[in-house]
């Protein structure tokens, strides 16, 4: 039951992009085509899950026992940066087709605050366990993917629309994101 609540909360109610404002940069940056946004979502799912697993273990078994909790931010970002590099190298060797699909997005993910954000938020889960933290990361990356893909589909349609000059580009995208976020607001109180 706990897990179902985590999933629904992360995907709809507290959507990581639209209500928590994490991962806005890729959300605005790589959402002009549905195909690229699918690739990005896949890469985030991959990295976020592995990174949360790694940081959770690091925090639980090294930082806390050693009383070095205050080094959380610096160790987490380094672990994430190193992981992204490693994933890139391994993918290149092991699965070239997957690397082709996700490769270009991987370097961008280091500075995706959603990854670091989820890694930190996962520590604060109630009755936390490794399984729960990983599940939380997967749910959040699904939420990220959902928001990104829906947003990209809307943007593809926007290209054909007649938009006032001053609103072209960034402002109209922000406005669309706002309306999307308003729609997701309807899910509050669900869990």
């Amino acid at each position, binding site marked *: 039951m706990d897990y179902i609540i985590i999933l629904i909360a992360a995907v709809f109610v507290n959507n990581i992009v639209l209500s928590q*404002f994490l991962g806005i940069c890729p959300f605005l940056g790589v959402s002009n085509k549905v195909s690229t946004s699918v690739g990005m979502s896949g890469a985030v799912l991959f990295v976020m899950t592995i990174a949360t697993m790694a940081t959770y273990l690091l925090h639980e078994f090294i930082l806390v026992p050693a009383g070095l909790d205050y080094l959380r931010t610096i160790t987490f970002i380094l672990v994430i940066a190193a992981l992204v590099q490693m994933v890139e190298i391994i993918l290149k060797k092991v699965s070239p087709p997957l690397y082709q699909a996700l490769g270009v997005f991987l370097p961008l993910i280091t500075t995706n605050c959603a990854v670091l954000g989820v890694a930190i938020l996962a520590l604060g889960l109630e009755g936390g366990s490794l399984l729960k933290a990983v599940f939380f990361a997967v749910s959040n990356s699904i939420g990220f993917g959902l928001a990104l893909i829906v947003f990209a589909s809307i943007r593809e349609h926007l290209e054909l629309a007649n938009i006032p000059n001053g609103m072209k580009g960034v402002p109209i995208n922000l406005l669309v994101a706002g309306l999307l976020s308003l729609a997701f607001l309807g899910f509050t109180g669900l869990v």
Partner: protein
Amino acid sequence: MAEKVNQTQNFLKGIVKENPVFVMLLGMCPTLGVTSSAFNGLGMGVATLFVLLMSNIVVSLVKSQIPSKVRIPAFIIIIASFVTIVEMVLEAFVPFLYEQLGIFIPLIVVNCLILGRAEAFASKNNILSSILDALGMGLGFVVALTLLGATREILGSGSLFGLKFVPEDANTFILFILPPGAFIALAYLTVLFNKISIKTT
């Protein structure tokens, strides 16, 4: 003389022409996430300004000592150290703000504005230019966040910096302090900013 003009421009560019929020769209997560009031926006802006200034100084000082292949990890360590310092100082001395900003404090690390300036500017320029660049960009960020926070607070809670100017039970546009309001307010502020900056240049 030309040198002086250059430095002034170097400082001013961050505030208007290359404003990190309205023009370059950097650091959007904290921009949208913490600006539900003017005070929060200001606090976040100042914290970011501090990290940006310190990291720009350090990066421009040590740039020649770092082999270029490992410069990005080196920059990240430098930035993360300053962010952690900010985190600890805020928790100790401004606990109220620390609670309000929450997770967005550690996330200053991944603010693309800071790594971006370290990589694109401080690693190529001397210390004076780097300081001016950081101050200009940082102030641009502070102004943008405070402006957005003020707009949302005025519309959403009918107050500014916590001072209420509408009756206690007046209806305000609560939408603007909710998440969608962040996107919508920023959209219109960007339009306004573009309009003004086109006129002045």
